[in-house]
């Protein structure tokens, strides 16, 4: 996306954002020794996040800069059926309601650090733990990769190439690593407040500008589309509706079970804070993906007939037009594009922190050096996080010619942890072996379908088909191979709602 309007002004704003992030990181780490000497202090902000920080960190983690730069073109290409982006972002809260209330209590009682802690505690099986860690790390790694690529594109586009792509990536990653190193989850959450606010305001002003340019009347836009491209307004075909149901399941279950999302449940200061944050989050899709959807629809009438590659530049093209309305819009557009970069960074930092915590707690602390001090574990997590980022950048700049698809697998693999995670909370007869085989089979089906390019069958995603098989294996296996009465009693104790151990 190349913006003719910014250049040097864009550079100034980006430097400003970077400095603010560093300052927040510095302030949140200053004088708090616990952060670097305790796993829960560094990775979960001492399990003490209040409402504002928790709400914004949930928001900034779920909505990335990609939500705008990527979803507006999707709305442009698919038309009104992209209104589905409101429901699939909302349903995530519904899935949280399935498990967060109980998991919150259990995690407080047992001082969990990572999602794997729950699997390890519940199933006491190395196979389940390792497979779970592998699937989650794979999903997180690819998610992070996507964000790193997006940072570079957004910055290079915004500054009209004044800052080249590769310099942009390195500069912003260094900023991110620096504030994360200084303040851990606390820094991530506090920077999210700034990043989330900029994103929310930016979307509103962007929509305002776009509406102004089309004469303030959405009905005219729709009538224009009806005449030129009636399929984008028409009632979706049955396969699109089935695909819509499928995406509700895939995104709902996948996004709720993202390790960094689960860790935000662990980080909440209290149940009251957690539910208040979720209650507000439930209203965010209409004002985020909903508005971005309308922006994409307006784009159809502003720039009709773009092919797929060109439509990817839609947000930049619209921003150029909006910026030329007057100097108010010009500056807001620059702030907004800085905000997009900030929003990508804010998603990347949460993912990276979660990635580090799993390496530190689940791999290093669990298998390699269980006797290590908390300080050492935190340090290992930080250092491996830096190494992982370097590796991912290397992959991003030297994309493998073949098998590129394995770097696309995210939700499809992650979501396979869902049955173990959720059924484990409520079903005492669940046993470890079927959980392992269900997870593995589900992951293989989802992986093979994605790799062979067969993304959906009758509109149903490979990840969802894998998930259904996974559920089947887990349930039938647990019925056929029941756990002992003693194990059932233990499960009852593990999943109880007592607050004290």
């Amino acid at each position: 996306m190349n913006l003719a309007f910014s250049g040097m002004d864009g550079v100034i704003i980006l430097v400003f954002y970077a400095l603010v992030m560093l300052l927040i990181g510095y302030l949140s780490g200053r004088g708090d020794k616990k952060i670097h000497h305790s796993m829960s202090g560094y990775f979960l902000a001492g399990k003490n996040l209040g409402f504002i920080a928790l709400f914004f960190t949930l928001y900034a983690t779920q909505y990335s800069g990609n939500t705008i730069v990527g979803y507006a073109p999707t709305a442009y290409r698919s038309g009104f059926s992209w209104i589905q982006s409101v429901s699939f972002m909302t349903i995530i809260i519904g899935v949280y309601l399935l498990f967060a209330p109980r998991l919150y209590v259990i995690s407080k009682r047992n001082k969990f650090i990572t999602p794997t802690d729950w699997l390890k505690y519940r199933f006491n099986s190395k196979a389940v733990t390792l497979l779970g860690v592998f699937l989650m790390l794979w999903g997180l790694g690819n998610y992070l990769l996507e964000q790193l690529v997006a940072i570079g594109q957004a910055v290079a586009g915004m500054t009209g190439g004044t800052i080249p792509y590769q310099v942009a990536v390195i500069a912003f990653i260094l900023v991110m690593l620096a504030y994360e190193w200084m303040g851990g989850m606390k820094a991530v959450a506090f920077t999210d407040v700034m990043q989330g606010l900029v994103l929310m305001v930016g979307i509103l002003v962007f929509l305002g500008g776009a509406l102004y340019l089309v004469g303030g009347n959405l009905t005219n836009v729709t009538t224009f589309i009806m005449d030129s491209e009636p399929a984008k307004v028409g009632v979706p075909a049955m396969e699109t509706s089935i695909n819509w149901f499928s995406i509700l399941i895939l995104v709902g279950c996948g996004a709720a079970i993202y390790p960094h999302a689960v860790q935000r449940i662990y980080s909440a200061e209290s149940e009251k804070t957690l539910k208040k944050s979720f209650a507000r989050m439930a209203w965010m899709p209409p004002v985020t993906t909903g508005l971005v959807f309308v922006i994409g629809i307006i784009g159809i009438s502003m720039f009709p007939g773009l092919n797929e590659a060109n439509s990817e530049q839609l947000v930049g093209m619209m921003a150029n037009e909006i910026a030329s309305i007057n100097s108010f819009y010009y500056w807001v557009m620059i702030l907004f594009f800085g905000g997009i970069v900030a929003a990508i960074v804010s998603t990347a930092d949460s993912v990276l922190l979660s990635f580090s915590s799993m390496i530190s707690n689940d791999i290093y602390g669990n298998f390699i050096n269980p006797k290590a001090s908390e300080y050492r574990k935190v340090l290992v997590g930080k250092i491996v996080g830096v190494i992982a980022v370097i590796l991912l950048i290397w992959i991003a700049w030297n994309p493998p010619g073949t098998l590129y698809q394995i770097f696309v697998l995210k939700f499809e693999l992650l979501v396979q942890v869902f049955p173990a995670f959720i059924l484990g909370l409520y079903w005492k007869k669940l046993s470890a072996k079927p959980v392992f085989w269900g997870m593995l089979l589900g992951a293989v089906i989802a992986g093979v379908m994605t790799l062979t390019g067969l993304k959906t069958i009758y509109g149903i995603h490979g990840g969802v088909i894998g998930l259904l098989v996974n559920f089947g294996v887990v349930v039938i296996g647990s019925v056929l191979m029941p756990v002992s009465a003693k194990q059932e009693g233990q499960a009852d104790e593990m999943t109880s709602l007592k607050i004290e151990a």
Partner: protein
Amino acid sequence: MEKMKEPIKKKWIWIGLVLIVLAIVPWYHSVKAVEPIILGFPFWAFLSGIFSLVLCGYLSWLCTHEWNIVEDIEEAEKRKVDEQ
């Protein structure tokens, strides 16, 4: 003290959720459901949007009203600490 409430234990919550989702996805419309255009939205998308908002409100309300497990204990403890 309020009674303990856990959403998973109430069937009506989930039946309600499924019904709203069934109303959001436009599988039940005939091809003619494009008109009238309401506020710039074709009829089917307008309806889908309205039910999407219903889903937001429903879930938001469930979070605050149907979820109460350890809140009373935690808040009582917090008050105790504050008083000291």
